[in-house]
């Protein structure tokens, strides 16, 4: 009996859903007038595992939007951002971009954060022939699919991110060179290839691998991993970290009382105050990381970006905020040069052929959309992050080596 009594309710719900579907369709048709704002759609991980960098990317996009609108907009239209939350989930990011393109009918797209999310998201964009500029999608898997409309708006892909670090290690005199190395890395398509890149180069130079393990993104406890590395007695540690895991491993290494001679981490140490507070300033001394952007760099608009960020959010921007800003700059340059958003194949063609000035420096791409420049190598010294290589843009002329014991600074 109860089954039948529920039937009307189910039918009413169904009708309401159908009605809602119809009305949303009729609401989003038409378009084409120039007075209308130019809508740029993006899905970002504002919640879930990547919420921290996702939030930073959101800030970068927002600063760019405000700066562009203050200067008269893009193609004389005000820019409107439509940013949705994908909760760091691959399925959600796909449905987000599908909805942005087919229902919201946004004019342009910007990428999500992390290769993990951008790999599936870019497939949606490519299928719909939309130009897809992403601020963080350096995994090799991004560029081996023959896509023509994706562009990675950083100086280098993941495998080459730490090239300067590997070169520096292998160029050390024999008595300072590490003999063994440990490579813990998160199962992340952006972090893991960086560490594999370092590993390949150091192994080729005769540095023995004594620990190499992958841990899942939700790992919260690093005590076991730290005790393992301690047992392996590795001279050098190169960790593929995102953020919390980078902080977590340093804390656990401190607890285990094991300090390597050289320590390299991806991403985490580039988070400025958050990193030094997380691990304790005294434990930052000598930690290396590769970075796509530096606040000190004299590239056009970089200082304006710093000031706008400080005025709106306070403090120094995260690297991910700068990368997001640069991704939007890339899209802006191409749209301005082409003069229209109707045929995005033209926008993509233009990007394949031209160099764009960004706050990360000039960027250009090969036919796969992979960038052709190099990351800079930075190191924590006296409680502050310094650029150490290449020499032309270095802010510190010395490189701390070997890394002093934990707690040596501050």
């Amino acid at each position, binding site marked *: 009996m109860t089954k039948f009594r529920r039937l009307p309710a189910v039918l009413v719900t169904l009708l309401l859903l159908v009605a809602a579907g119809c009305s949303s369709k009729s609401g989003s048709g038409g378009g084409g007038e120039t007075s209308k704002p130019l809508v740029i759609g993006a899905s970002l991980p*504002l*919640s*879930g*595992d990547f*919420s*921290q960098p996702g*939030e930073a990317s959101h800030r970068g996009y927002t600063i760019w939007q405000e700066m562009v609108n203050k200067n008269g907009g893009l193609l004389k239209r005000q820019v409107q951002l439509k940013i949705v939350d994908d*909760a760091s989930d691959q399925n959600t990011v796909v449905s987000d971009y599908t909805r942005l393109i087919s229902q919201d009918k946004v004019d342009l797209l910007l990428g999500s954060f992390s290769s993990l999310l951008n790999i599936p998201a870019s497939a949606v964009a490519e299928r719909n022939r939309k130009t897809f500029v992403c601020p963080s999608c350096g995994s090799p898997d991004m560029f081996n699919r023959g896509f023509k409309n994706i562009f990675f708006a950083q100086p280098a892909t993941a495998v080459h991110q730490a090239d300067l670090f590997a070169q520096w290690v292998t160029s050390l005199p024999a008595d300072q060179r590490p003999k063994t190395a440990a490579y813990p890395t998160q*199962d992340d398509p952006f972090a893991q290839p960086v560490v594999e890149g370092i590993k390949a180069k150091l192994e080729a130079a005769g540095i023995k691998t004594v620990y190499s*393990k*992958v*841990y*899942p993104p*939700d*790992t*919260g*406890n690093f*005590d*076991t*991993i730290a*005790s*393992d590395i301690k*047992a392996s007695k590795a001279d050098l540690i190169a960790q593929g970290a995102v*953020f*919390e895991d980078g*902080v*977590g491993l340093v*804390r*656990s290494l*401190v*607890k*285990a*009382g094991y300090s390597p001679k050289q320590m390299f981490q991806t991403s985490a140490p580039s988070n400025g105050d958050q990193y030094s507070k*997380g*691990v*304790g300033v005294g*434990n930052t001394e000598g930690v290396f990381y590769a970075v796509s952007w530096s606040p000190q760099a004299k590239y056009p608009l970089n200082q304006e970006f710093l000031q706008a960020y400080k005025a709106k959010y306070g403090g120094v921007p995260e690297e991910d905020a700068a990368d997001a800003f640069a991704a939007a700059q890339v899209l802006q340059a191409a749209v301005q040069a082409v003069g229209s958003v109707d045929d995005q194949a033209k926008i993509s063609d233009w990007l394949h052929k031209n160099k764009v000035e960004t706050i990360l420096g000039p960027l250009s791409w090969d036919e796969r959309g992979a960038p052709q420049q190099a990351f800079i190598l930075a190191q924590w010294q006296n409680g502050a992050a310094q650029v150490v290589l290449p020499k032309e843009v270095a802010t510190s002329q010395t490189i701390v080596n070997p890394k002093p014991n934990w707690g040596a600074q501050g």
Partner: protein
Amino acid sequence: MKLAQTILLGLLTGGVYALLASGLTLVFGVMRIINVAQGALLILAALFTFEIWRRTGLDPLLSIVVTTPLMFGIGWLLYRGMLARVRAAPEAMSVLLTFALAIAIEGFMGLIWRNVFRSVTPSYFASSFHVGSLFLPKGLAAGCLTAVVVLALLYLVLTRTWTGRAIRGAAENLQGAQLVGVRVLDVAALTFAIGVATTGAGGSILSILQPFFPASHYVWISKLLGIIVLGGMGSLPGAAIGALLLGVAENLTSAYISPRWSLVVFYVVIMVVLLVRPQGIAGSRLREDVAA
């Protein structure tokens, strides 16, 4: 050496797990409610600890005296306001209800504390005792010790007080307990509140051991379910044994196979136990056909 260190870390972690699982198994034992929201309440208590620590600088382990009554109150209200209403419904209803509750709490935490990782970092969180070449992280040791004390208190309350006897009586024979004058609804609310109150201490300890954010509760509830299934659903000593075993198993897997597989251990245990020995280590078999 590596083996000894791994087992040591595993036992300490297991001690903390035992406390975290105690509330879940207690509530199941008395009321046959699988409180899927236990993980979310745990993170909520950790966030309370974080907030207290941020505002006053109070040591997270001392803030247990604040978080425990707070979580007790929340538990009591949740039972009286929501769970009491599905008492007569099939058990599956309580799973659905508490799952919905977990999602609601996650959303609430996201609104208030935002979806970023938090951790409480008192001065001792990154230091260790060194015994020979072994190291004992101070935070983990203090957390494990606190967990043992809280568990012992809980055990004493259950075995030495009339309230505890009423709770155990209701767990063993509901109608019998009613016959001798136990007010079952009050006992149920009290048990649920005690079960949730354990997350007060659990959350405070957790806050110094690992970074956490609202969605972390999914990982925790899966770990806790693995522990109580292994120990025997409803058995407090069983949960303690299960927690120690899985704490060690998790760490051994991480060290000797791969950290990738360490969380999987919990799921594998759930499957194997349900196939081979459904009542777990210390649980009792219940004939569902006549018991109803």
